[in-house]
């Protein structure tokens, strides 16, 4: 079994020695606080984000610290939240708004796709939309149909949007700070299953916390993890496994159990895509698996598959494989039959190695 070589290369201005332990929730909250402290134009709003501090506590304490005009509750209207944010962003503020669950973004979809994404383009840069729309995403929590969806492909298909999915506290903070600073609209999908600890798909084992994990170490100051840069989490020579969000942890566990020397890449940003890193890896390994929680058909994996086959055709030793959620609505009782766990990933690794 090859020795696992993990690489922690975080692109930061200067990594503080004074690291803090944070969960993903705390890292996201800290990113808000750092951004709001730094830039008076950063405004936070959404359902229950103000006085109460968010149903996941991601905005706890912000209203108290920065006042009601910087962090406030909104009516239950996703189109209202995003629509007013478009107006605020055009004015010159930097709204960082929350949709309570990604599953509830649909009423705001018109504002996101028709307005936020296109404002810069259609006005030739006269009006812009520097905003962030945060939404808890993904399953593995018995959330069933409307608390488990992974709608990233509905955003990556839209020209003008950037789509980000962090997989750990360190990245979550740095990516959120980069997203807030970014001049374009960013969809920031937070895998809710990772809020309190990493999850590798072994639902029958005790849950883990971020306090024991290297990536739970977070710099308390300002730093950015640049958008559009993937991260090689484990170097390997036999297969490239491309994934993001909760599936990063499922992939790492499955790889350890498989004994195969798999290179695991965390995309972090889906669009713009760090194609270079992916191509370099697949050209080296000759095999590739794409793994995501979202449903298979027309999912983001299809885009990666298409790009990799075009760029790495002559290096490929095996067909590209996708491991994804089944093409069904997200069920409740069948949570662990639906959720792509380590067993399915190991099967894919075995299949791709046989080819």
């Amino acid at each position, binding site marked *: 079994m090859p020795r696992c070589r993990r690489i922690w290369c975080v692109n930061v201005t200067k990594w503080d020695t004074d690291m803090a332990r944070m969960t993903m929730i705390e890292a996201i909250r800290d990113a808000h606080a750092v951004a709001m402290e730094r830039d008076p134009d950063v*405004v936070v709003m959404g359902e229950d984000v103000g006085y109460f501090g968010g149903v996941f506590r991601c905005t706890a304490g912000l209203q108290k610290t920065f006042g009601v*005009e*910087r962090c406030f509750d*909104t*009516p239950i*209207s996703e*189109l*209202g939240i995003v*629509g*007013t*944010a*478009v*107006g*605020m962003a*055009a*004015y*010159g*503020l930097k709204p960082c708004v929350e949709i309570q669950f990604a599953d509830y973004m649909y*009423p705001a979809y*018109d*504002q996101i796709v*028709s*307005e936020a994404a*296109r*404002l*810069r*383009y*259609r*006005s*030739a*840069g*006269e*009006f*812009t939309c520097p905003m962030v729309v945060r939404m808890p995403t993904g399953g593995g929590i018995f959330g069933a149909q409307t608390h488990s969806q992974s709608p990233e492909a509905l955003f990556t298909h839209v*020209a*003008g949007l*950037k789509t980000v999915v962090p997989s750990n506290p360190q990245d979550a903070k740095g990516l959120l700070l980069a997203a807030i600073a*970014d*001049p*374009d609209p960013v969809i920031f999908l937070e895998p809710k299953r990772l809020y309190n600890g990493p999850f590798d798909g072994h639902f029958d084992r005790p849950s883990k916390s971020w306090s024991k994990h290297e990536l739970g170490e977070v710099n308390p100051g300002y730093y950015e993890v640049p958008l*559009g840069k993937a991260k090689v989490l484990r170097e390997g020579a036999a297969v490239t496994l491309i994934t993001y969000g909760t599936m990063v942890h499922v992939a790492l566990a499955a790889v350890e159990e498989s004994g195969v020397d798999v290179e695991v890449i965390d995309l972090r940003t889906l*669009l*713009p*895509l760090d*194609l*270079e890193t992916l191509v370099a890896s697949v050209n080296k390994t000759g095999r590739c698996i794409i793994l995501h929680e979202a449903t298979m058909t027309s999912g983001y994996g299809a885009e990666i598959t298409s790009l990799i086959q075009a760029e790495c055709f002559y290096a490929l030793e095996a067909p590209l494989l996708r491991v994804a959620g089944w093409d069904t609505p997200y069920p409740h009782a069948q949570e662990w039959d639906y959720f792509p766990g380590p067993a399915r990933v190991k099967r894919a690794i075995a299949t791709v190695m046989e080819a």
Partner: protein
Amino acid sequence: MSEERAPRLHVPEPELRPGDDPDFSHVEIPRAGAVRRPDPGENPEEMRDLAFSIIRVLNRNGEAVGPWAGSLSDQEMLEGLRHMMTLRAYDARMMTAQRQGKTSFYMQHLGEEAISCSFQKALRKGDMNFPTYRQAGLLIASGYPLVKMMCQVYSNEGDPVRGRQLPVFYSSREHGFFSISGNLATQFVQAVGWAMAAAIKGEHKLSAAWIGDGSTAESDFHGALVFASTYKPPVILNIVNNQWAISTFQGIARGGAGTFAARGHGFGLPALRVDGNDYLAVHAAAQWAVERARRDLGPTLIEYVTYRAAGHSTSDDPAAYRPKEEGNAWPLGDPILRLKTHLIGKGLWSEERHVQAEAEVMDMVIAAQKEAEAIGTLHSGKRPSPRDMFEDVYAEMPPHLVRQRHEVGY
């Protein structure tokens, strides 16, 4: 207990269809000057009656009467007349240009010129309109160059939005005119957000949201009213009720409600209903709402009662769904003629001067058109480069777009 009956679907129908004689006798038109003018600070609860009447200043004889009269100087009224005439001449030329194949599409304002031309005069620099595709008068009244407007319609090299938008979808931050979108009603809620931003920053600016009667049925209309009602930012919510949404008469969107203005009451917003063909009434109502915003008294809803005298767009023939002569029968008349009559009555204008002005305005519009067409039209002359297609999708062009641009050869 009364007898049960199977339910029947009620589908509102306009009273008249093609072939019928136009008849607006059912439209209640109050006398000019009859509606009171409350102090802008008055409690919205106390002025609910204003949503069920029509604020009018110009009477049948063209006299300005009542408490809403007198908000404009002689000079301003003369200017207003010129703005409306310019918009009408511009519309006529662009309609023809579309018919000649110089552009793909156009939408005119016939009969609605007073609303946007007059409203703009109540604003100041720094305020922002969130218009629909039928408020080009806002641009004309704020001094935006006609040549630039035409270049946008022609999608030529001079088009400020680089040929990316359908004709009439103008944009000018400098002139307080937010980029127009094809998706109806989206701007209504954005305008509320803009005003919220002004309130958050404590800056003396306001926004004006615009929507048509048909689009009030969109969810964004409701969202805008909810957010406006909750945060009370300095926004004016304008509904232009021109009776028609393409072929659909306003009763389909309005249902059984008395008026569109009355929709404001459920949100605790003061609501005015105004004669949209009366330049003076539009200005007086706009000024009233602007004063509320400037005094931080919150939003105002205004319904402008008007009539879409022409087709919906160059792709529409209204003869297919309404009587041909209906526009001429509209009881609120023609906004240009009404202001003209008023100015003549005041000794500031004459029939001769008007004929002369019509010629002057047309000459100016034709000169601008020549200048615009010298640059190019949709199918000839200088057009934006295909390279422009890839710019401004993002602030910085990401690698995949650079690759695609190279593929096009730029």
